[in-house]
């Protein structure tokens, strides 16, 4: 399986006793790409990542990381932020980062300055002398991210990097991930919160119950899942919505919170429909309602016949309060 890809998996399978965690996973991540690995909790994301990292060994299948048959041969070139992350409580931050960096093959010379610079970049200047137990959870997560990038890795794997972060820290982390990507690092990050992936990735891999259900560029997904719905808010509260329902492109028009949602007939042009609706009655706001990744995911899973509880899956993938949405 000679390849120039950063990560390549072919038919990878992993079981824990009778439970199949990952089944027949094929995956190719080109060098320099920014991939989102998404799926609900328990989908098999962390197991897949641990196999990529050679922390777990697959039962069967082939795997290559940065051109090597095992990540063990390239650990110094990989940065990893595990989902279950911690530090030595009594160890000072500087000593901890220095220890991890040295384990990753970073030379002692200039290491202290690099650590200081990275800590300043994550908004923690001068915490080198503090013990981990003195830091808040959010601060520790930043320290752990620094540990993942302190050796300027070629491949950065982040397992649920946004979990537990406040919105400001999330935004900072997003910028840092993009900076690593801009530096040339290949990035794979997993999340069960789809808006994070929509916001950050250029390619998405969806996994459900250990099986891959989607592997496509985000732009392609948006093209494939063309919007068929339009949301609008009439300027007048007593506007005659029947005029919209009478339009040829419109299949239905239902009141929703803050206005109406129009479902277009198959083959209708969404752009023309927007113009038609705006011509039928004055509107305060009108927009195409795009498919969100979670809608795509739920649709794919439903098509596969393995969906039992749509609402709870939506709730999980939407990420609750920290979820965002992509406006047209």
């Amino acid at each position, binding site marked *: 399986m000679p390849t120039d890809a950063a990560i390549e998996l072919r038919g990878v399978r992993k079981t824990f006793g009778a439970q199949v965690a990952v089944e027949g996973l094929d995956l190719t991540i080109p060098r320099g790409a920014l991939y989102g690995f998404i799926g609900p909790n328990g989908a098999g994301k962390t197991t897949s990542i641990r196999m990529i990292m050679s922390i777990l060994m697959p039962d069967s299948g082939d795997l290559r990381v940065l051109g090597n048959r095992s990540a063990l041969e390239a650990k110094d070139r990989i940065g990893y932020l595990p989902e279950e992350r911690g530090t030595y409580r009594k160890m000072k931050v500087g000593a901890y980062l220095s220890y991890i960096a040295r384990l*990753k093959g970073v030379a002692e010379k200039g290491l202290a300055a690099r650590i200081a610079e990275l800590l300043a970049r994550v908004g923690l200047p001068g915490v080198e002398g503090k013990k981990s137990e003195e830091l808040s959870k959010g601060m520790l997560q930043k320290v752990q991210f620094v540990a993942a990038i302190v050796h300027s890795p070629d491949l950065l794997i982040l397992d649920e990097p946004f979990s537990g972060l406040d919105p400001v820290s999330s935004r900072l982390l997003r910028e840092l991930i993009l900076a690593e990507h801009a530096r040339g690092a290949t990035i794979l990050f997993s999340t069960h919160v789809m808006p994070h992936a929509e916001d950050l990735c250029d390619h998405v891999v969806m996994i459900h119950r250990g099986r891959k259900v989607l592997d496509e560029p985000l732009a392609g997904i948006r093209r494939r899942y063309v919007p068929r719905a339009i949301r609008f808010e009439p300027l007048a509260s007593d506007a005659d919505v029947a005029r919209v329902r009478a339009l040829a492109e419109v299949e239905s028009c239902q009141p929703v919170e803050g206005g109406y949602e129009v479902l277009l007939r198959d083959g209708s042009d969404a752009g023309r429909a927007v113009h038609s609706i705006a011509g039928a009655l004055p509107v305060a706001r009108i927009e195409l309602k795009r498919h969100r990744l979670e809608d795509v995911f739920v649709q794919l899973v439903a098509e596969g016949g393995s969906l039992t509880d749509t609402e709870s899956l939506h709730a999980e993938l939407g990420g609750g309060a920290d979820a965002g949405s992509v406006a047209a």
Partner: protein
Amino acid sequence: MIKIWQIAVREFVATVFTRAFIIGLLVFPMMLGVFFLVAPRLFADRAYNIEGDLAIVDPTGKIAGDLETAIASNANGAAVGDALRRAGAPAQAAELAQALATPPKLTVVERPPGGDLEQEKAWLRVTDAKPPHLALAVIHPNAVTPRAGETELGSYDLYVPPKQDQRVESAVKESLRDALVAARMREHGLDRAVIKDLTTVPPVRSVTVTQDAERGTVGGAGIIVPIAFMLLLFMGVMGSGGGLLTTTVEEKSSRVIEVLLSAVSPMQLMAGKLLGHMAISLLMMSIYLALGLAGLSTFALFGLFDISLIGYLFVFYLIGFLTIGSLMMAAGAAVNDMREAQSLMMPLTLSLSAIWFVFVPITRDPNSTLAVVLTYVPPLGPFVTLLRLASTSPPPTWQVLLSIAVGFVEIVGAVWFSAKVFKIGLLMFGKPPNLGTLIRWVRAS
């Protein structure tokens, strides 16, 4: 190899440069100091005032008079003698002690012979008597001269009240014994003072003749040296084994383990931790050994042990440490917290503690069947072999070599098993595993 070294250095630094380690290092010598200096003072018999009535029923009519003399001469000289010896008193301490000691204030109450014994016993049941009723002795009629046609002499029956101090009974018995012996000697026309002189041999102090010099023989050397070496080995093995268990559980429970595994393989992590903790315990053992040797040198007792014992100590330390340490680390990787670790390690800890039950018989007879068999039984083998090597009758060389060979097989087995458990257990959370689960992991990996 560099990564193994880096892990080892971190383990060493994180442990050694802490207050806890330094305090722990000082605790053992302090405990020894307490044992050797303070304990004799704490446990020494203090002068005990014995005061009360001793009733005697003497059908021979020859004991009571001697009993009062015996009580007066049986002063509790032992405690005073100890005090004098500690104060550096000369060899005549015993006589001095006898002179200084207070005799028991026992008042002999003679009861008529032939009375009702139950009535005499009722005298003992009077609990609020002043002075207290301490004992009732009923002398056998043949206690001084045998019955006609017999050669065997009688003795006496002793009755005491409940909850009486053992020292009271000892003093009573001692006095009665002296009185009986005095009466019998007089009956046979023997001079007790002459017999005492004839049967007394002053204590002799032996001199050990070595290759280079002569020195006074240290009586406890045959016990002290083996125990000291075994203690050193036990501390080295269990101290570092415990450290490996604790740090592995800490790394796993704090979830730092996965970060480490992204940088090193499980085998590198295990090797680094073993190396680091080996260095820690070697440092600790070296300090204690150096202190011990300095102590021996100070008291000119350096010749008490064979210098090759240090080499054997290192060899058996390696066997013990690599076996116990790797198993401890595997246990640390398999569990979620220290409580689970302790229960998983209970069989090993208990089997190791068996050494404290067998070291006395092995030290007394280093070539007994028990000693020879345990030489090859893991995990006690290294401890027993070192104990025997340090004794006055070391085992034959072939037994030592066989023990080392068994030890190396033990290491290979323990490290092989532990490596497999370590690799799988590190990322396993939830229900703590039992031995069956561990064996399944080993088969699966």
